[in-house]
């Protein structure tokens, strides 16, 4: 916040605060990417902050999940040790209390891997947003290495632009929800066949005027499900960070309003503990949102498999 605030001097504090908050939750500018890449198929392939964060998340998931599981599968006796213990407990929780009750015992082993992938990926992507590693790097860069904020070609200065929560970007969550959308269709097709899956959208044997209302509603519901998933995850991740930054910004706003640093420091006594408490709440939200996305995907897949009419 300090680093961003010094850049745009001249405008009022309220404008700077608003700019700062948006700057800290949105993706970095495509015009000033971290890594320049050429256009492919008419799309600018340059790496922005959220793309970099997705790569880091993929790397972290590989290190903490895939490698322990591979080494567990290679060993002779099936007694888990170390990291495999933790993964086993989470796997069992997701299989027994999220997937099995919704999808049914017949298809559990088909759909558990997808749900586990969703859970771990979203958990890591959400959780990494709470770790201020880039801000620490920026502070070291600024005050230890003495690189000025205006140095645009400095690599770490480039890293400072944009938010770190990749799941706070609607494009990322939309991509995740598209996977859910197609897996619903695949689940229904595998269980009932392609034609029967689409027939199962509406109940059989009703009077024909009801279908005139029911078919458009069900078709809309088909699209609303992934849309709601998209909005829920991204809005939750963005909203928490905005609340956190707004509380911290109260210091600057009050100091400006009363034209004294003492007012800012006085408000800091209240707003910093509040921000710490909201950070704690945010850690719960991180876990709950990963759980909710997994649960709702399981419910929707289960609805396509176990048709209740």
């Amino acid at each position: 916040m300090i680093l961003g605030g010094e850049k745009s001097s001249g405008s009022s504090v309220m404008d700077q605060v608003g700019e700062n908050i948006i700057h800290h939750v949105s993706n970095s500018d495509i015009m000033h990417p971290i890594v320049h890449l050429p256009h492919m198929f008419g799309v600018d392939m340059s790496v922005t902050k959220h793309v970099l964060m997705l790569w880091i998340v993929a790397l972290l998931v590989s290190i903490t999940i895939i490698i322990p599981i591979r080494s567990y599968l290679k060993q002779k006796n099936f007694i888990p040790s170390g990291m495999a213990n933790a993964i086993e407990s989470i796997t069992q929780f997701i299989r027994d209390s999220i997937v099995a009750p919704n999808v049914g015992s017949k298809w559990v082993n088909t759909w558990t891997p997808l749900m586990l992938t969703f859970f771990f990926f979203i958990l890591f992507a959400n959780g990494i947003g709470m770790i201020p590693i880039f801000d620490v790097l920026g502070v070291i860069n600024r005050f230890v290495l003495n690189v000025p904020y205006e140095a645009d070609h400095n690599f770490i200065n480039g890293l400072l632009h944009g938010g770190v929560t990749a799941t706070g970007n609607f494009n990322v969550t939309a991509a995740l929800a598209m996977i859910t959308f197609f897996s619903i269709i695949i689940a229904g097709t595998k269980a009932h066949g392609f034609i029967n899956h689409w027939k199962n959208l509406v109940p059989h044997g009703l009077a024909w005027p009801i279908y005139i209302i029911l078919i458009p509603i069900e078709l809309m519901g088909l699209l609303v499900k992934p849309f709601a998933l998209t909005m829920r995850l991204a809005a939750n991740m963005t909203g928490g960070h905005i609340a956190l930054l707004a509380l911290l910004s109260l210091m600057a706003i009050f100091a400006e309003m009363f034209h004294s640093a003492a007012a800012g420091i006085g408000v800091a006594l209240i707003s910093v503990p509040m921000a710490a408490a909201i950070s704690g709440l945010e850690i719960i939200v991180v876990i709950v949102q990963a759980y909710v996305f997994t649960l709702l995907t399981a419910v929707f897949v289960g609805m396509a498999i176990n048709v209740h009419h």
Partner: protein
Amino acid sequence: MEATAFMPIGFGLIVIGAGLGIGKFASAAAESIARQPEAADKITGAVNLPLFLLEGVAILAEVFTFLMLIL
């Protein structure tokens, strides 16, 4: 008067609606757990899903209100 002047009222209505809904869920869950403590796990499981769907609706409404403000 501009339409965006009613934005805060819209936000307030969303929060009232979501708050009432979540409050009803919580009170019903607490009451039924008090009556049957042994069924606490099942009750929590049954409450979870509609709770998240309700929260999703509230967030959708807030996103749309926010989009109306900035577009």
